């Protein structure tokens, strides 16, 4: 199967600024791969290097086993859907879609059939003669998709393609995009800063920060098993706690405030000052003074009824504020949710994770110290 991308030690600096800092990633063929991260994390620069718009400072971009880092964009069999679509305003829909077919050895009839086929796929048949300005945002987005897919690229790059659309259309197109990807089996490399979008669409996510990959894996792996504070904080809602880690008969013991907790998840070999995290849905809310391990008392500061659940903010003894969700399963609550009521919190060992510290942002000195291989000239 074609369409595998491997990035090896990929680095890009703009003068003093290191935008992408030694990224190693494997994007398996046929998968929906998402690069997720806050703005300025290097995800778009990485995508632009794969497309060929930026030349890497160092490192390799392996497309199905051959290094394309120095191949100009028009000779790479990857295609891009741009954030602003970049539809040619002087051409109609058919002209836009057929633009790249000129460079493939096809007969007129084959080209015509391909254009028709791809417009059917994105449900834009009958719009051939429209100019881009006469289309809605969602339609323009689909033309951009068709224009790239008609060339049957090995990899399709998508740079926040849903960013310019309103929330409702965004949801619809997320589903549609995912369906098209599954249908044609082309590798999609998708860039977004929207964690929800990444979670719902991707087979695999690489979470980026400060030009580096913080963690890569399936949405579930990353959500359930964040390794660093940044990942825990960026993806979903997390409670982060200061803790002192020590070994206690082979298990990791965390001292949080006045109490000790057993933690079975994450970097359980860590010792000393660490951050511990737990998802709101993993915290058990109980009546005050329920006996047992891994428990701490707290005072309800705020409770919000969300329909399917209550979101409860609890101030614990150490002074930290924890969010817990109590699912609305129809059973009566065994504790009061009024502001100021005392409750017990159960942080089960299999929900409590020890996190590795997040990498600091690369400074200019760091970049200078690292040996930077110069890119070979073309």
């Amino acid at each position: 199967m074609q369409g595998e991308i491997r990035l090896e030690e990929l680095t890009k600096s703009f003068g003093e600024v290191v935008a992408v800092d030694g990224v190693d990633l494997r994007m398996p063929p046929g998968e929906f791969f998402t690069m997720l991260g806050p703005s300025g994390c290097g995800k778009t620069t990485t995508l632009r290097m794969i497309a060929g718009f930026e030349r890497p400072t160092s490192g390799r971009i392996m497309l199905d086993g051959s290094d394309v880092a120095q191949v100009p964009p028009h000779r790479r069999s990857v295609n891009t859907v741009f954030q602003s679509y970049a539809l040619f305003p002087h051409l109609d829909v058919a002209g836009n879609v057929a633009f790249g077919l000129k460079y493939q050895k096809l007969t007129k009839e084959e080209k015509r059939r391909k254009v028709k086929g791809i417009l059917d796929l994105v449900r834009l048949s009958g719009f051939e003669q429209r100019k881009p300005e006469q289309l809605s945002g969602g339609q323009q987005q689909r033309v951009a998709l068709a224009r790239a897919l008609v060339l049957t690229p090995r990899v399709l790059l998508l740079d926040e393609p849903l960013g310019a659309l309103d929330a409702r259309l965004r949801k619809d197109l997320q589903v549609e995009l995912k369906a098209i990807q599954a249908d044609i089996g082309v590798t999609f490399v998708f860039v977004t800063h929207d964690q929800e979008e990444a979670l719902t669409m991707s087979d695999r996510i690489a979470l980026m920060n400060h030009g580096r990959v913080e963690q890569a894996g399936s949405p579930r792996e990353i959500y359930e098993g964040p390794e660093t504070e940044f990942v825990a904080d960026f993806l979903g809602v997390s409670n982060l706690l200061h803790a002192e880690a020590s070994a206690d008969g082979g298990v990791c013991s965390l001292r949080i405030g006045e109490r000790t907790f057993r933690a079975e998840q994450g970097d359980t070999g860590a010792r000393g000052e660490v951050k511990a995290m737990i998802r709101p849905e993993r915290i058990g809310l109980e009546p005050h003074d329920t006996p047992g391990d891994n428990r701490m008392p707290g005072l309800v500061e705020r409770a919000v009824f969300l329909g399917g659940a209550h979101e409860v903010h609890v101030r614990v003894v150490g002074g930290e504020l924890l969010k817990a969700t109590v699912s609305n399963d129809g059973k009566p609550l065994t504790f009061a949710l009024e502001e100021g009521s005392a409750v017990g919190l159960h942080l089960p060992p299999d929900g409590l994770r020890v996190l590795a510290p997040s990498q600091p942002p690369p400074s200019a000195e760091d970049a200078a110290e690292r040996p930077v291989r110069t890119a070979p000239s073309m």
Partner: protein
Amino acid sequence: MINWLRNPWGKPRWLKLITIVYILWSIVPVAIAILFAFNAGRSRTTWQGFSFRWFTGASGSVLHDPQYQGALKHTLILAVICVAVATPLGVALALGLQRWRGPGGGTVNTVMLLPLVTPEIVMGVALLLLFLRVFPEIGLGTPAQAIGQVTFTLSYVVVIVRGRLTSIGPEYEEAAADLGAPPHDQLFRVVLPLLIPAIIASAAVAFALSIDDFVVTQYLSGNASTTTVSMLLYASARGAPTPALNAIATVALLITLATLTLAFLVYRRFASGREAAAVAALDI
């Protein structure tokens, strides 16, 4: 009057007043000059009735006087050459400068704009010396005049085209490259079609500048056959001119206005209002 000017609720009326006075001041003399182009008599100061005799009359009119005919023809020839050379050259320069990143780029950009602020007389004198001393084989006359006009209109073309290039952005080129278009096709299938409004506008501005130019064209003229309308106006204004002089000035003015209006309309059709306004502002 004073009370009317105060108007505490709206915009200050004295600003309005200044504007009106200025518009009258700048338009009325031109309007009077145009009016006397239609004078039935020989006077350029006393109205003697309406007539087209100075445009189309049997003798001494713009249409039949060989001197006027020659000047008009030479003016148009120079304008056509100027447009034909300055426009493609300016587009090429703009494209090159847009991509020139790195050392020297800033300096070159500034140098490109110098002709816009250089006093024309300085440029005229410099070019005169150039053609007399350095390139005597070119000498003075039509080629020198054309080269001189291209030299200073080029900057305007570059400014207009670069403005459009900046507003287009690099994305369309990237999209074309992404879809497999080699650099040549990126330019001819995408960038140039998108530049059409700017190219038309800059060609019109170059045409108008060429027709209006006096200093450079005068300095580089050879003999009587290289006299343009503006030179003719200057030379005969102090002699004993007839309203035919007003008539030919009116013709030149109309050609300029028509060209610029056309350019503005074409540009507005294709480009955003703000760019069109910027081009309109260049119509000095």
